[in-house]
């Protein structure tokens, strides 16, 4: 009798708990392996391979410029710098594996860049770019300074590499920074191609450290921190009680590319959301199809549509912005605020609604203080 009671008590537990919770710990029957395969093979790896190629061109053109510092060669470096910088926006969110290990993001795109530190490195001629303390003296923002910010016009910039007393050191630094981008890209591509891809796809569970959870968190974090906060929020004064920082925009020295970099990064974010193959029109499994599989809705509308509509709204607002964000901030910061609002709305849809629908916990915290 007591034994029966004991068994019954467990049955009661099972019944009581299953009635209001339809999702078992095994997950939702969505095929995460197909999802991860699409992410790895059609999006992440091709994005890195493309970035690696663009970084290679940048290194070659920088070498050409260094061995023959002319205005024409400077302009060529600039073009390949922009192309590589745009390609970088497509890999910025995948802070996984080797990229995470070598801090590829911080080494590639910490801005505003530390011009005093750069000049100090150049004059001493001695530095180790792999150190954490050197991240704000390298990457695309440092190159921005080196090829756009050293002088008021091209002739004077070329002068630093041709006639300056320290020209050899300037050349050496430009080469070192460009090469570092390339070697970092190489390391990540090699890693994905030699085992990481398989372990990434095989890690198809639902735990906090599973590939789907980690990558989805990175997608949201990239949209919130790198795109919304970094590209718009900080320079527009949203985190400094209205004190604006036009010098903290991305691509400050080139100055007219902040908007382009923003739009590319938003496109990369949206493409990932939709499972769109890199550089192809084909789409495969992605967060969109996952949400649709779960029938996620918001206000009677498919959540995936809500999110894509908001991406459209983001482009609309972005299109009202000046190519130069530092100019936009100085002339009419309210447009930057509007761009921030549009981005934040999609942070809400993805960070709150999407993560809730996917039952994925946010793995990073906002230190909003008291």
């Amino acid at each position, binding site marked *: 009798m007591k034994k029966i009671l*004991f068994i019954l008590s467990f049955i009661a537990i099972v019944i*009581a*708990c299953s009635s*209001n919770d339809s999702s078992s710990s095994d997950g939702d029957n969505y095929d995460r392996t197909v999802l991860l395969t699409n992410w790895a093979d059609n999006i992440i790896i091709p994005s890195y391979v493309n970035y690696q190629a663009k970084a290679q061109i940048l290194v070659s053109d920088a070498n050409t410029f260094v061995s023959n510092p002319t205005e024409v060669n400077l302009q060529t470096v600039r073009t390949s710098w922009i192309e590589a910088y745009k390609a970088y926006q497509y890999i910025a969110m995948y802070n996984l594996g080797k990229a995470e290990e070598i801090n590829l993001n911080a080494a590639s795109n910490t801005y505003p860049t530390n011009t005093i530190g750069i000049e100090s490195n150049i004059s001493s001629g001695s530095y180790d770019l792999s150190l954490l303390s050197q991240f704000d003296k390298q990457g695309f923002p440092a190159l921005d300074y080196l090829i756009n910010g050293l002088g008021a016009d091209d002739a004077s910039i070329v002068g630093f590499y041709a006639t300056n007393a320290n020209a050899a050191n300037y050349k050496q630094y430009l080469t070192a920074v460009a090469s570092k981008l390339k070697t970092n890209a190489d390391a990540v591509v090699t890693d994905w191609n030699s085992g990481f891809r398989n372990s990434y796809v095989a890690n198809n569970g639902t735990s906090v450290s599973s590939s789907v959870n980690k990558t989805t968190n990175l997608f949201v974090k990239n949209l919130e921190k790198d795109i919304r906060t970094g590209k718009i929020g900080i320079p527009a004064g*949203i985190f400094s*009680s209205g004190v604006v920082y036009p010098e903290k925009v991305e691509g400050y020295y080139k100055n007219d590319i902040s908007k382009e970099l923003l739009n590319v990064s938003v496109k990369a974010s949206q493409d990932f959301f939709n499972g769109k193959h890199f550089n192809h029109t084909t789409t495969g499994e992605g967060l969109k199809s996952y949400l649709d599989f779960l029938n996620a809705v918001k206000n009677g509308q498919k959540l995936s549509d809500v999110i894509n509509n908001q991406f459209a709204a983001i482009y609309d607002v972005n299109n009202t912005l000046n190519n130069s964000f530092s100019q936009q901030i100085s002339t009419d910061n309210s447009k930057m605020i509007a761009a921030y609002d549009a981005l934040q709305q999609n942070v809400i849809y993805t960070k*709150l609604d999407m993560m809730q629908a996917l039952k994925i916990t946010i793995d990073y915290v906002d230190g909003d203080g008291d």
Partner: protein
Amino acid sequence: MKFKNLLLAAMPFLFASITSCSNDDSTTEETFNYTVPATYAFERNAVTSVDYSGQTSRLLMLDEMGNYFKTSATNGTVADDVVLSEMYLNTNNRFVGTDLNTSGKQLKDKTAASKDYFTLYLGGGSTAEQVSVRDLFETQFDNADLASQGATASAGVAGAYLDGTSKRLFAANGLEPQQVLLKGMMGACFMDQVVNNYLSLNKLDESTNRADNTAKVLVAGKSYTTMEHTWDEAYGYIYGADNLTVTPNVFKFWSSYINQVNADTDFNTLKGDIDLAFRKGRAAIVANDYAARDAQIDIIKAKLAMVPAVRAVFYLQEGKGKLATDNGAGAFHALSEGYGFIMSLRYTNKPGTNSPYFTKAEVDAMLASLTSGTNGLWDIDTLGPKLDAISTQIAAKFGFKVIQAATVD
């Protein structure tokens, strides 16, 4: 014997499982055994677990800013807009005591900054609105500066005038920058932080807060859980600058106005209700009784919203009665207070809606109506009907009569 032990061991588990799964089943109710203290005093290991020093700092900052206007008006000195801006941002050591200067706290970054309305954009909020509200307060500093240059306030002219025994600064439209700041900030900062931030489930239950609170995982180096502290921070924005150890007792901002509303027999349970709800909710958090906590949140949100509603109507009606005094100028102080309390209504949070009782558009329309005459408030001939219309609109929304709020008896 062994089975008996096993059964006994399973019993609490069984009980726990039934109650933990009963969230959507109102027939079974979990029982909790805890007492609600008579005052807002909570301890853990004989050390207080209550801390709202950051809130106290901000209340004192606003208090000192208010006094800066007052001193300027009384002494005929310039109310420097730069100084006021720096006080708002807490930069350049503008406060009298070093405590505030070095507190690391400021009012500006907590203006229209709640999680629900200005991060999650519930209740119609946005960053654009946040920016415009902060700008509006900055404009009050400019208005005060302009009004303190020596002119006597008159229709369309910013300046000072003697209102009874107090000299006050008025903008060209008759609004008192000091009152727009004080009452407006009570809404845009204190109210917003209480009901849309610290009493928001999105804040209280964010991240692992609930599990941590249930397991009594304390904040590193502190005697409270994050959830307990969050609740205390809400409390602090209302009562954080009170001082009950001096005679007469000191009450600031919402605490003071809760008392003033409560002094009217029509609303004489308000003070006790809010105070009790804060104590109950805090005790409930300690006891992991989240249903009770949530019930107290609803009480606080509803009761606290009554305060700006009742006071707005009170001041509009008081102003109406003084329109004939000094060409209307005698009314403008009261009307400015009312104006600020109407601003505050935008930051209320109607339980269950995550939206204010009045939308931003509705609040803006009321405010615009008040200053819609030629030279704003100075157009006293058209003001009376507007004041009545707004009073009725507010009273109706909150279920009281204009006369109940207009007379404190």
